[in-house]
C-alpha cells in the first residue's frame, strides 16, 4: 500500500491525496500520443519549414515532423487565444456605450494596440508603445 503522504521508498515525492483519487495528474501524455497520430494529415497554418527554421536556430533538431506540427499548433493556439481575448475587449468597448443592438455592433473589428495591451497584460506581457513617433 502506498504511504498516505511523504516520500516513497525510491525517493519520489507523492503529494497526499493521490491514493484516494483527489488529485489527478495534470498532464497525461496518452491522449496526446493519439493526437500525434492524427497530426499526420493535419497541416497547421504555420508551414513546417518556417517552424523548423526557428527551431533549428534554437538548437532543436526534430526527428519527427509531427513534433514540429505539434509545436506550430501550440504556437498558433497561443496567438489565437490572445486574439480572442482582444476581440472580447473590443466588443466590450463597443457595446459598453449602449449602441443600437439591431446592428449588433458593426461587423468590422479592428485590432488596435488599445485592445491588445490589456489582453496581453493578463498573460503577464507588458507592452508599451509610444503614441507618436518622432
Amino acid at each position: 500500500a502506498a504511504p498516505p503522504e511523504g516520500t516513497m521508498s525510491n525517493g519520489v515525492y507523492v503529494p497526499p491525496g493521490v491514493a484516494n483519487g483527489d488529485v489527478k495528474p495534470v498532464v497525461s501524455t496518452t491522449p496526446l500520443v493519439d493526437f500525434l497520430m492524427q497530426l499526420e494529415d493535419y497541416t497547421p497554418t504555420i508551414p513546417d519549414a518556417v517552424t523548423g527554421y526557428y527551431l533549428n536556430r534554437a538548437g532543436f533538431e526534430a526527428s519527427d515532423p509531427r513534433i514540429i506540427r505539434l509545436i506550430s499548433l501550440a504556437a498558433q493556439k497561443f496567438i489565437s487565444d490572445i486574439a480572442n481575448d482582444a476581440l472580447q475587449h473590443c466588443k466590450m468597448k463597443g457595446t459598453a456605450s449602449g449602441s443600437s443592438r439591431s446592428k449588433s455592433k458593426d461587423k468590422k473589428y479592428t485590432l488596435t494596440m488599445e485592445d491588445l495591451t490589456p489582453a496581453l497584460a493578463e498573460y503577464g506581457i507588458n507592452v508599451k508603445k509610444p503614441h507618436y513617433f518622432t
Partner: protein
Amino acid sequence: RAGGKQASTPADNYYLARRRTLQVVVSSLLTEAGFESAEKAAVETLTEMLQSYISEMGRSAKSYCEHTARTQPTLSDIVVTLVEMGFNVETLPAYAKRSQRMVITAPPVTNQPVTPKALTAGQNKPHPSHIPSHFPEFPDPHTYIKTPTYREPVSDYQVLREKAASQRRDVERALTRFMAKTGETQSLFKDDVSTFPLIAARPFTVPYLTALLPSELEMQQMEETDSSEQDDQTDTENLPLHMSTDDSGPEKENASVLQQNTSLSGSRNGEENMIDNPYLRPVKKPKIRRKK
C-alpha cells in the same frame, strides 16, 4: 532580425522571408478570430511574440531533452515545455479539430547568398588544416593583399632641363628681389620707385682691383701648383697674398656689397657678420704642409 527599415541584403532577405510568412500566419489567425483589420503595430507585436514563442519552445525542449541525457527530443519533452510555459495541453486537440482551414504555402527555398562568379577575383586561400571544411571559405585575396605603388619619377631629359632652368631662374629672381627690398635701391624710372627697383651699385674705391686680383678658384689652383715646388719662401709669400685675397673672394660672390679695402680687419668682421652660417662660408682647403 527585427525586419526594420534597414536596407536588406540577400542575407537579410533570407531571414525576412520567414518572418513575412509568420506575419501572414498571424493575419490569418486574426481573421479567423473575427477581426477585419488590424493595426500594423499590433500585427508586428504578435509576429514577434510568435517567433519568440517558437524559439523559446525549441530551446526549452532541447534543454529538457539534454537534461535526461538524450539528444533527440520526444513528445514528453514538448509536453513538459508546454506545461512550463503555462500552456493548457488538454485543450490542444480540441483546438486542432476546431479549425482546419487556412493553409499557408511555405516560403520559397532559397540557398544561402553566394557571391556570383563574375565578382570573384583570384584564387581563394585554401583552409589551413585546423579549420573544418564546413566553415565558410576565405574571402577573395584582393580584399586583404596590399601592393604599394610608386610613381616613376620623371626622367625625361627635356623636362628635367626645363625644371632645372625654371627653378634657377626663380631662385635668382627671389634673391634679387629680396636684396632690393632690404638694401639700397636705385629706380629705373624717374618717378616710379617701386616697379623696377635696381639694387644700388656701390662704386669701388679701387675699381680696377677686381680685374687685377685672381678669383678664389684661381687662387686655389695656384696654391696647388705652388705646393708642388717645395719651396719655403714661396710658402711665406703665398700666405699674406692668401690673406688679402680672402677678402676679395667673398666680395666677388656678394657682388652688390662692397667692403672698404682700407680696413682689412673691419671687412673681415663684416664678412663674419654676413656669413654667420658655417655652411655658407667659403670652403677652406687644408693647408698643405710641405716637409722640409
